[in-house]
């Protein structure tokens, strides 16, 4: 895997498109393994497109594109400007709030970030937010989604670590709100320092606000109705993207009457390149992760951590720091499957609570999707926002720090995670 990693960096440096850099360097692993069939890279690439959970990604990109033509985005923006108009960096606050609301709906950080980049990204740039800052918050705010129930990461952790999924669902809620608060404060601080002006300096006349609220009702109902559909069993988390597309299109055609067959087709046409760029990267990265899994790299290194200290907090902080570092290169799903069964018993031996550890572990692992040099969600937002990775990275540092601060707080005060599940399910 050393050659693979080295090749990946060299290819990145010479300006190779990231998707190909990941695919080509990953394929080098198979050159060193003559015993393995040479068709595995093809098979794994195709296999990614047979994963029903990933199907939500193209659908949410389409939904974002259609929202722009169906009048939903414009009305949402008008409404947002009424609510957050006096806040600095208003739209950045909107994307955080939207992720917290949409989290329970899409459950997929990549799908959520991609859709919101499509919907809000252009307008954020028009309002003179720096590209790196806008792209970073569009990405990092989606970190909230996997811990708002029913996130797929929690189901995964629950089954790998034999932890109650219901308790995990309940345990995610307060940390999600905490992440919202942390990101929101970070945005305010940055906006103040950079002098992003509020959109308005004075109160709106009452009529304006009412008008915006009435206009925005269908946009506001979007996450609400999807959530209702999900909770009432009309559809499952994996299917939700299709319902998002249908809702946005129906509102555009029938309610706002701003969309016709032609503009609908144009919206879909405009999403094709984004779908291709994001999905090609995700598909090809399956080649890259194969070697990491087969050589059990994270497992091998994790052995060194276990036994470094006997204090629960010390062990948890070490584990999470390790997960953050490995997460630079490895996808969250792989991290959860490989490392949860190793670390959970260690934590439990020191009387750590599995639900508490699960939530902080999922957040730490998911951060990996947003950090360079390998991060599917990061490349998804950067592609749609046409933002260079280095600009994104500079913009992301404050949000990375904010997220880590939340993780540390959760480790130090487990009750923040646990009081809700304890209240609902008993201790």
């Amino acid at each position, binding site marked *: 895997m050393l050659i693979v990693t080295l090749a990946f960096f060299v290819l990145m440096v010479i300006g190779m498109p990231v998707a190909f850099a990941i695919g080509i360097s990953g394929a080098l692993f198979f050159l060193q393994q003559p015993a393995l069939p040479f068709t595995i890279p093809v*098979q794994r690439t195709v296999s990614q497109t047979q994963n029903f959970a990933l199907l939500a990604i193209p659908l949410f990109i389409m939904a974002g594109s259609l929202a722009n033509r169906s009048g939903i985005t414009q009305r949402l923006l008008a409404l947002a400007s009424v609510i957050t108009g006096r806040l600095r960096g208003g739209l950045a606050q909107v994307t955080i709030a939207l992720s917290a609301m949409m989290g329970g709906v899409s459950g997929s950080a990549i799908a959520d970030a991609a859709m919101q980049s499509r919907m809000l990204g252009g307008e954020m740039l028009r309002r003179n937010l720096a590209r790196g800052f806008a792209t970073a918050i569009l990405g990092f705010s989606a970190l909230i989604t996997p811990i708002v129930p029913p996130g797929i990461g929690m189901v995964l952790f*629950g*089954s790998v670590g*034999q*932890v109650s999924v219901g308790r995990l669902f309940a345990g995610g809620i307060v940390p999600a709100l905490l992440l919202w608060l942390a990101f929101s404060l970070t945005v305010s601080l940055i906006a103040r320092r950079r002098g992003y002006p509020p959109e308005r300096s004075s109160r709106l006349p009452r009529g304006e606000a009412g008008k915006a609220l009435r206009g925005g009702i269908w946009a506001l109902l979007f996450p609400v109705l999807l959530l209702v559909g999900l909770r009432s*069993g*009309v559809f*499952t988390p994996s299917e939700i993207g299709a319902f998002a597309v249908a809702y946005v299109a129906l509102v555009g055609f029938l309610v706002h009457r701003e969309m016709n067959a032609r503009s609908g087709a144009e919206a879909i046409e405009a999403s094709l390149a984004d779908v291709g760029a994001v999905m090609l990267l995700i598909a090809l990265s399956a080649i890259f992760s*194969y070697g990491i*899994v087969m050589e059990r790299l994270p497992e091998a290194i994790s052995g060194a951590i276990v036994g470094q200290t006997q204090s629960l907090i010390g062990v948890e902080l070490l584990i999470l720091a390790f997960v953050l570092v490995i997460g630079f290169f490895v996808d969250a799903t792989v991290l959860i499957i490989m490392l949860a069964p190793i670390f959970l018993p260690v934590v439990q031996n020191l009387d750590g609570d599995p639900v508490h550890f699960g939530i902080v572990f999922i957040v730490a692992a998911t951060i990996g999707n947003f950090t360079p040099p390998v991060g599917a969600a990061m490349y998804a937002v950067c592609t749609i926002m046409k933002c260079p990775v280095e600009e994104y990275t500079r913009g992301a540092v404050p949000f990375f720090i904010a997220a880590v601060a939340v993780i540390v707080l959760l480790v130090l005060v487990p009750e923040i995670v646990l009081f809700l599940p304890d209240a609902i399910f008993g201790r």
Partner: protein
Amino acid sequence: TGAAAQEDFTLRFNHVLGPNEPFHQGFLQWAENVEKRTDGHLTIDVFHSAQLGVEEDIIEQIRQGANIGQNTDAARLGNYVPGISVINGPYFIESMADVDKLNDAATMQAWQQQLADDYGLQVVCFDWVQGKRHFFTNQEIHAPADLKGVRVRTPPAPIWQESIRALGAAPVAMDFGDVYSGLQSRAIDGAELVYPNITAGGLGEVLDYTIETGHITLVNFQVVSASWFAGLPEEYQRILVEECRTAGQEASRRMEAAASEAKAQLQEDGMTVITDIDREAFRKAGEQAYEALGLSDAKQRLAEEIGK
């Protein structure tokens, strides 16, 4: 051990179960015993939770001769040699004793030969019994008629769906990861699984009733590449098979114990277990699955050979 033992062999063994499942411990036991008996010349590296890839992909890699193994079931092997899928049919194989007899059945041996010769798939052993599958629902069920319109999650393969349809329910193909929230939101009304699946997935939180139908006994197969297997010294081949059977039988017993434990745990947590069901009606209904799948002849032949 013998003089042939110069060369070293490695088998990477993949399975979809979690690391806490009794079968994972069983695979590790198999690996340990084989390594010990071959003085470390044949090692098995076990990967849980489908880390190396989805089952169907791995089976194709095995067919191409990779030194990879996979724990799989009769339904998937039936994609290559259709007759084998009868083992996965309703109310046919019902105990470990049945599986033992299956090992000596001529038809079964012919199918295995065909898998190896025509498709490059070597069955090492199939003494791994995951246990009886039951219906787990949110409503009381006593007979096939009660299952009408009840949406039950099944693995996404026609053989499963046909079996569940024959028993009266409406089969829903769904990823296992969606089952918890699917049950919670009532997108589905139930699932059909073995007891330890329910506790492992925390599904007891969103399910009220167990209907102890025992409609399918899930038998697992350990499959490796036929060409890789042929390349092993004969002694190693024998050790690999023997230890597979020993570890499998032990894991099956542990699985049985785990099922009782899981059942007790679920009952303690408030699950109602329904045992007064019309077993004859379920059995009769199950027959339709074999007809729908064109497997009636294969079933009858195999049934005669194992004396059922």
